[in-house]
């Protein structure tokens, strides 16, 4: 391939940012100084194309150093990685955290998503608009003027900090960049932050509400053991499960996980043992392991709590998964909005490597495994298990066609094990107490414990761990309910892709079989409560806007369906319906059915789920009159 580049050249700062990631360019072919040798050799072929997977890290390197990606920087990335500039542009414009137009170095992403809306996010945004100015969603293309005042704010989808709503993410480009995800944001604090005062962005995290409860399993160490210390992790039972795994051997581990009847916690509830076995059996090598830490489902923050509070557990569990399924390389695909989790995981990986718990000869057992963190770019769809592969490989994060399935052909077209963070965390517990004992926790169809993300209008939001079988009401009670003077009107179960349930359904047991019988879903474990003060139509409109923003755009039912769904809801909310509200509801139903039936992936297939349940179970349109 002959690269055709634009004339634009990178600045010294942009070059530096890339050199820090990729090393100095080795020849003129890679954008270095053109030497006499370069005229007699050519770089190309497999060796240079194999660097494509560095594309997203390269884009991040420039973004976090300079605050945006210029034509010169994009050109230089294309040159250094031998990727056509049009492709680089296609990938860069896929991610909401990357800016292709000039932007100040200091940016505050303010969450205006459903969880934060229950806690004043709209008022916060309105106040910011009044005091600071409108949100800056600058146009893509580098020929636009940079706003002069050095800092801007943007509206953001759920930042995974719904327990501390309203939430915001501050990023300050530079060397080194500063990134802070913080909660309980007030307008004055946001303005001060934009002005450069980091005082309000304290990284302190509250301990989980059940802190100290001896029955906790997955949350046992959080707020108890120092997440930065391997010794503390070991003092609290860390690395006993990996030791046990080496005793059992790979097949033994898979047998335990299968006996435990563990089902995936990422949303699809696929039997983990079966998945591990399928990967282990693939003759093609190498095998890859991907820990899905993209957690972007609105209302979900359990994986963040695990990674921030118990990062070594994630590393240990991945090592066990890799040992059982024959992987030498693992990736943690971490959503880009989780700087603290990133820091803690990086620290854990570094220490584990230094102590022989990652690397060529783990625990002296001759087993080789290492882990790399890949940072997402602000795209919910990249949590889909095949989109994640495209994203890591340096392509647009569009889901792939299945079959083939990831266990057959996944990352780099090799057999790949994809598991959610919480799923992996359960493996430590399974090996600690044995698969059979684990299977006795919970119910027959849903074994073990489950993390629930309680948020919205509850007194004590946070991650709660309960054995499967607890009812929705019990969980709401654990979180203190909506508090005196308020009435709980409905609960969104499972996130934006989940369903609304009514108060008379609160006795449903939160098991896979229990919610299935009630035609609901556990999804990613979201329990978002809404009291009488919340305008559900406004929540629905935000959900519709979320799917319209996050659709990858590949398939027609989702790309256009999410737009038509949002338009109809917007007409209803602004009392400008086409025909009666009932006719709009019928139209929404037709749109929803096509999205559910004909979309490529789970995003489009569930984009109508919450809206449908609000129309049919909550009857939100009753009382809305035609204009």
């Amino acid at each position: 391939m002959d690269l055709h580049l634009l004339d634009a050249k990178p600045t010294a700062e942009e070059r530096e940012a890339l050199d820090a990631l990729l090393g100095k360019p080795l020849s003129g072919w890679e954008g270095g100084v053109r030497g006499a040798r370069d005229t007699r050799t050519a770089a190309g072929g497999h060796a240079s194309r194999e660097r494509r997977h560095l594309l997203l890290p390269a884009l991040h390197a420039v973004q976090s150093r300079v605050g945006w990606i210029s034509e010169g920087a994009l050109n230089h990335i294309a040159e250094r990685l031998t990727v056509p500039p049009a492709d680089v542009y296609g990938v860069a414009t896929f991610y909401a955290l990357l800016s292709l137009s000039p932007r100040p170095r200091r940016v505050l992403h303010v969450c205006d998503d459903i969880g934060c809306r229950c806690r004043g996010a709209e008022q916060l945004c309105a106040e910011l608009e009044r005091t600071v100015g409108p949100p800056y969603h600058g146009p893509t293309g580098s020929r636009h003027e940079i706003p002069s005042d050095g800092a801007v704010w943007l509206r953001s989808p759920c930042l995974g900090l719904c327990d501390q709503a309203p939430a915001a993410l501050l990023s300050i480009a530079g060397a080194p960049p500063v990134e802070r995800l913080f909660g309980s944001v007030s307008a004055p604090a946001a303005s001060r932050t934009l002005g450069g005062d980091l005082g309000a962005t304290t990284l302190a995290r509250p301990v989980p509400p059940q802190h100290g409860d001896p029955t906790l399993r997955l949350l046992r160490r959080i707020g108890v053991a120092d997440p930065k210390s391997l010794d503390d992790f070991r003092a609290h039972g860390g690395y006993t499960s990996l030791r046990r795994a080496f005793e059992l051997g790979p097949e033994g581990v898979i047998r335990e996980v299968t006996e435990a009847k563990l089902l995936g916690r990422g949303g699809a509830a696929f039997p983990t043992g079966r998945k591990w076995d399928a990967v282990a059996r693939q003759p093609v090598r190498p095998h890859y392991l991907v820990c899905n830490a993209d957690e972007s489902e609105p209302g979900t923050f359990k994986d963040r709590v695990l990674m921030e509070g118990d990062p070594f557990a994630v590393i240990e569990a991945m090592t066990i998964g890799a040992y059982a399924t024959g992987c030498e390389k693992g990736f943690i695909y971490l959503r880009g909005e989780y700087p603290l989790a990133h820091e803690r995981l990086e620290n854990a990986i570094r220490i584990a490597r230094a102590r022989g718990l990652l690397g060529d000869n783990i625990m002296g057992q001759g087993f080789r495994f290492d882990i790399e963190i890949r940072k997402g770019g602000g795209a919910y769809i990249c949590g889909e298990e095949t989109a994640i592969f495209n994203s890591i490989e340096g392509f647009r994060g569009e889901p792939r066609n299945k079959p083939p399935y990831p266990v057959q052909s996944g990352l780099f077209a090799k057999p790949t094990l994809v598991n959610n963070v919480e799923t992996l965390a359960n493996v430590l517990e399974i090996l600690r107490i044995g698969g059979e004992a684990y299977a006795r926790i919970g119910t027959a169809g849903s074994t073990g414990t489950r993390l629930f993300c309680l948020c919205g209008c509850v007194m004590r939001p946070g991650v709660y761990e309960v054995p499967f079988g607890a009812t929705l009401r019990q969980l709401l009670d654990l979180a203190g309910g909506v508090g005196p003077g308020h009435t709980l009107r409905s609960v969104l179960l499972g996130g934006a892709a989940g369903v609304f349930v009514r108060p008379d359904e609160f006795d449903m047991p939160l098991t896979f079989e229990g919610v299935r019988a009630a035609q609901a879903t556990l999804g990613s474990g979201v329990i978002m409560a809404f009291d009488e003060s919340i305008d559900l139509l406004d929540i629905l409109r935000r959900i519709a806007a979320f799917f319209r923003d996050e659709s990858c755009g590949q398939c027609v039912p989702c790309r256009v369906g999410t737009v038509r769904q949002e338009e109809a809801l917007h007409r209803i909310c602004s009392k400008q319906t086409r025909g009666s509200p009932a006719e709009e509801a019928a139209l929404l139903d037709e749109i929803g059915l096509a999205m559910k039936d004909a979309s490529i992936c789970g995003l489009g297939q569930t984009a109508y789920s919450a809206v449908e349940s609000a129309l049919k179970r909550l009857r939100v349109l009753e009382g809305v009159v035609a204009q």
Partner: protein
Amino acid sequence: MSADQLVPLQASRRTVELTIDGDPVRVPEGTTILDACRSKGTDIPTLCYLKTLHPVNVCRVCVVEVEGSRVLVPSCSRAVEPAMVVTTGSDRVRHSRKMVLEFLASSVDLSATPDVEAWLTSYAARPERYGPAAPPVAAGERDSLPTGHHPPPSTTHAATVGQPVKVDNELYVRDYGKCILCYKCVEACGTDFQNTFAIAVAGRGFDARISTEFAVELPKSACVYCGNCIAVCPTGALMFKSEFDHRQAGTWKEAEQTVTATICPYCGVGCTLELHVQDNEIVKVSSPLDHEVTSGNLCIKGRFGWRYVQNRKAADNPRTS
């Protein structure tokens, strides 16, 4: 290689038996559901499918019902399996196809897409029910949409991809108001044929679009004007400038055109050309999709290098005067 090592061209592929709309069908292993349906005379609409390209199965107009599958299945890419039970005309299937057609017709200008009128009628699609189409945006506006947050939608108009035609070179135009984002041009320009990678899909969701880097004009991009993207575009979004000019002037008369097959005179490959001639003027050049050498592809010379044929008048050609 000795003669007994030679494999017959039609390697003995196993036969798969399945049921389509209640009828037993036998086709070779690896056949797509679409081809199996067509082999028994059942027609299925397609938009993003083309036999010479890798299936991307994104338009979803070809979906069918497969027993045991939770969702509908794209017939253009899914291979048949033994004992599969396929239904091509159920209410569920017809509903999704109708909605796909409505979604496209309400957001894209399909006036130059063949067959689509007939499909809209036969599926009783009513694209107008989403409201009047929003007016086209200014040139370049869709190219600079930021990814992520978008402004609230209109309550009166249906969003569209409407925008001015991009006329930035003498050979072909890009009218992305007609683009259904079928990915064919990207495939043809990239790994499937041309390996030039001048264009890619940029942006996300409804704001996704075909673009060069930073949406620069074609002459600044990597484009080599092979026109292979034009050849695969199903909607007329990519069009010869000569055809575009005729259409603008109201002088495009497809029915009166003749098509003459010939061999490209430029190099030793000898690609087959089809010259589309109107009023004794070449108005566009194609190559047959099923041609064993070209698969419909040409280079700039075969595709566009025919102006000299037209320069009959001495005044047009200073070198012979």
